[in-house]
Each structure stands twice: as C-alpha cells, then as structure tokens.
C-alpha cells in the first residue's frame, strides 16, 4: 500500500517536472523567435531560405482563405439566424441586431474564430513539417550547418502568420457580417440598412480586434513549432506533435481571448 502511494507521488512528480520542462522549452522557442526577428532586422539579411517568407505567406494565408471564409460564413449565418429567432419570440424588435452583431464580431468572434481555424489548419501543417524534419535528423543537419533552426524555420512562419491572421480575420469578419445580414433579411425580413449599421463600433473595439489577431498570429506558429521540434521517434512522434499542436494552438487562442478581453474590460471599467 505504502509503495503504491509512493509510486503515485513519483508519477505525479514526473508529470509536474515534464510540464515545467515543456513550459520552459515553449518559452525558449518564443524568446528565440523574437531574438531571431531582431537578428533578421538588425542584420538586414534573412537567415531563412530565399523567398521563404513569400512561400509561407502563401501557405498560411492564401491556402486558408476558402477554409476561413466558408467556416466563418456559416457560423455568421447560424448566429444571425439564432439571434433573430430569439428576438422574434421575445420582442420582435430587430433594430439592435446588426449593431450588436458587428460589435461582437469585431471584439471577439471575428479574430477568435479565425484564430481557432488557423490553429487547426496552419498549426497542424507547421508541426507536421518540423516534426518530420526532426525525426529524420534534418534539424540536426541544420544545426551542424551553422543554422539556428528557429531562425531558419520558425521566424518566417511567425512573420507570415502575424500578417495573414490579421488579414484573414478582417476577411472572415466581413464575410460573417455580410452573410449574417443576408440570413436576417431572407429569414426574418430584417432591413439590410438597419442590419449593416456599424455606429456602435468604436476605435477601442478595433484595437482589441488587431491585438487579438496579432496575439493569435504569434501564438499559433510558436506553439506548433515547439511541438514539431519536440517530436521524437518516427511517424508516431510526428502524429503526436501534430495533435499536440492543434490542441495547444486552440487552447492558446482561447486563453489569449480571455486574457485580452478581461484586460480590456478592466481597463475600460466594464464600458467596452
């Protein structure tokens, strides 16, 4: 009995130690990425292959357009329909629906849903690519060639993700709002002029939108890169890294959403 308790405590301790070690490594990848950005800026010379940034902008951004537009479009339609349905049952007054809908999209759903979508599509791609390189020793070969893997592999993805998460958040939000308005018009006869009213959107909402998009854009490649670089063994290790990147990236988006929203509420005294 005593031995079993000691074993349990040891297992728990091992989990805590592993988690602490992983958190430290994640932090080091983040710091290394920022340092790599500074080096790239300072030296005026990319430490990644020629044209890599353009390739990553295309891979992360252009190839995600359809995925983000379709997903956010459908979510916008469902949300708009449900909101109109509830209002029709209670008051039948649709005068506030568009104003509140766009405010919600700008402060939360636009960047956050885009971030969640990119955490799955982009995060999985980055982790699988880096994980494959890790288990086939290509990362070690880079280190032997005098190349810092973070500078070479993560920094261009980080930059591309920052730019494209912001751009796709804008696009996704526009589609979400547009299709939401169309749904409201076709299902409940809501006047488009009434729906497409952005007068409640203030500059502070736009600041939150940009902050969230940039935070998600930074978190997704760092988490995915960290998972890829931790891959061990063979294909099973790459699979683990990919799964961990999707879970970790999505989790990071949700946590950052909460932190930024809570901070904004605190700073504005609840008058967001």
């Amino acid at each position, binding site marked *: 009995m005593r031995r079993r308790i000691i074993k349990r405590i040891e297992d728990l301790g091992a989990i805590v130690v592993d988690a602490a070690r992983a958190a430290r490594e994640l932090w080091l990848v983040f710091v290394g990425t920022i340092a790599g950005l500074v080096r790239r800026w300072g030296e005026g010379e990319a430490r990644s292959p020629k044209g890599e940034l353009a390739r990553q902008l295309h891979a992360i951004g252009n190839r995600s357009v359809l995925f983000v537009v379709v997903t956010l479009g459908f979510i916008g339609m469902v949300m708009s329909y449900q909101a109109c349905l509830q209002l029709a049952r209670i008051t039948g007054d649709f005068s506030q629906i568009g104003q509140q809908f766009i405010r919600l999209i700008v402060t939360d759903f636009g960047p956050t849903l885009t971030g969640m979508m990119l955490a799955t599509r982009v995060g999985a791609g980055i982790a699988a690519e880096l994980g494959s390189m890790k288990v086939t020793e290509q990362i070690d070969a880079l280190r*032997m*060639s005098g*190349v810092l893997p973070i500078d070479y592999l993560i920094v261009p993805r980080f930059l591309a993700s920052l730019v494209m998460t912001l751009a796709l958040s804008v696009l996704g939000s526009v589609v979400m709002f547009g299709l939401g308005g169309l749904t409201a018009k076709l299902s409940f006869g809501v006047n488009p002029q009434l729906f497409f009213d952005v007068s409640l959107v203030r500059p502070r909402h736009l600041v939150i939108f940009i902050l969230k998009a940039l935070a998600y854009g930074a978190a997704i490649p760092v988490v995915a890169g960290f998972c890829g670089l931790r891959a061990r063994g063979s294909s099973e290790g790459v699979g683990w890294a990919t799964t961990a990147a999707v879970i970790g990236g999505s989790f990071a988006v949700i946590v950052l959403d909460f932190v930024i929203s809570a901070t904004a509420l605190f700073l504005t005294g609840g008058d967001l």
Partner: protein
Amino acid sequence: MSLVSFVKITKAFGGKPVLRGLDLAVDKGEVMFIIGTSGVGKSVTIKLLIGLLAIDGGEIWFDGARIDQLPERALGPIRKRIGMVFQNSTLFDSMTLVDNVALPLRKHGRFRGAAALAEARRLLALVYMDEHAERYPAELSDGMRKRAAIARTLALDPEVVLFDEPTTGLDPVSARRIDRLIRELADKLGVTAIVVSHDPPSIFGIADRVCMIYQGIAHVVASPAELRASTDPIVQQFITGQSSGPMETPGF
C-alpha cells in the same frame, strides 16, 4: 595526445541507461569504427561529441579543450571543425544538391553568393557528384545522396568527420565506394573519421581501429586484425553474426 577523448561518459533516455562509463580516445588522422548491436549507443556517442545530445556524466575533450558543457552558440566553431554525415543523408529536400552544399558555406561565412556555389560544385566533384549538382535529393539514389551529404559535410573543411552508418541500405558496390571515399579523406586530406557501422566489409576493409560498445562501455578497442583474432566470445559472436551466444541483445 588524442584529438578526441570520451571520459567515463554516461547517458540515459527516460531513465534507461545507454552509456554507463564509456572511455574512448581517437587519434588525429585515424579511421575509428564504433561497432555494436542496435540500440547499444553508437550513434548516441557521436551525437554527444558535437552537442546534438547532452551527456549525463563524464567529460568530452576535443583538441585539448573540454567541450561537453558548451552552450549551443559556443558549439558553432566546434561544428565547423567536426562535421557529420547522418544515417539518412538528411539533405534538404527543397534545395538542389549545389544549394545543399552551399548552405553551410554561406552560414559559416566562408563564401558568399556565386563563390559559394562554385566551391559547392568543387566539393561535389570531390565525391564524383558534380554532374548532378542541379538535381534535387528526391531524384537521386541512396548512394548518391550519401555522397552529396559527404560533400556538404566537407564544405566546412572539418578536421573530424562523423559517419553514422554510412553504408546502411546501400548495395555492395555503392557501399564499397563510400568506404573508399572515407579512406581517401583520411589518407589524402588528413581527416579523422569516426564511423558508426555494423558492416563487416567496411570494418575490416578501411578501419585503423575498432571500438566495440557493449553494455554501455567500450568492450574492446583494437585493430581489425586484433579483433578478428580475438578469443573474446562477445567479439566473436558479433563479428561472425551468430544468433546464439553469450551476447545479450535487448528485445530478442
């Protein structure tokens, strides 16, 4: 004094010890083979030397300086002097051979622009691969990829080259060509070669000395002739490839 020394090296993975006090010294200009059964720690040993893995205990010395405690950045100059040819060649798939070989030249600042490409072509010619310079790794056979990987390793003009199972997976003719290349590096360029292998024709064909790792230590360090003449039952079982004998092989 030896160029490379491993002193009482210990290394474990997930609590399972692999190396339990390995001692090995490699002299300048020699071709040292490290042999042993799978999972015994041969590849681990050479990766410890260049900091791709960290030791748990012991000391590693290179050219009179202790290098096992150096941080990643400080390992850069060491990795210029010690190159490694990986088991799977590990050429970068998205680059042509000439770009693969030029990468370390550019990154370590030896050459820039067109000069790096010209030097890369010269190195590919050394391994008889210059006519394939513009091809991608996926278009080549395993033997050709190995030769290109050797050219990339030579780009930094290393004093020591580590070969991780250079002939594994190759047909006998390609394997002997790789052996010849390794021997030429030592004889013509004075490069010290540390070769991880289980390939008897390589071991008895080109090695100056052989270190057999067994149960985490250097069980025997001897010349190929001494190894062949050894009456040690562990050594005999390994070199004759008998499935039954005193050797403990985890997993079998």
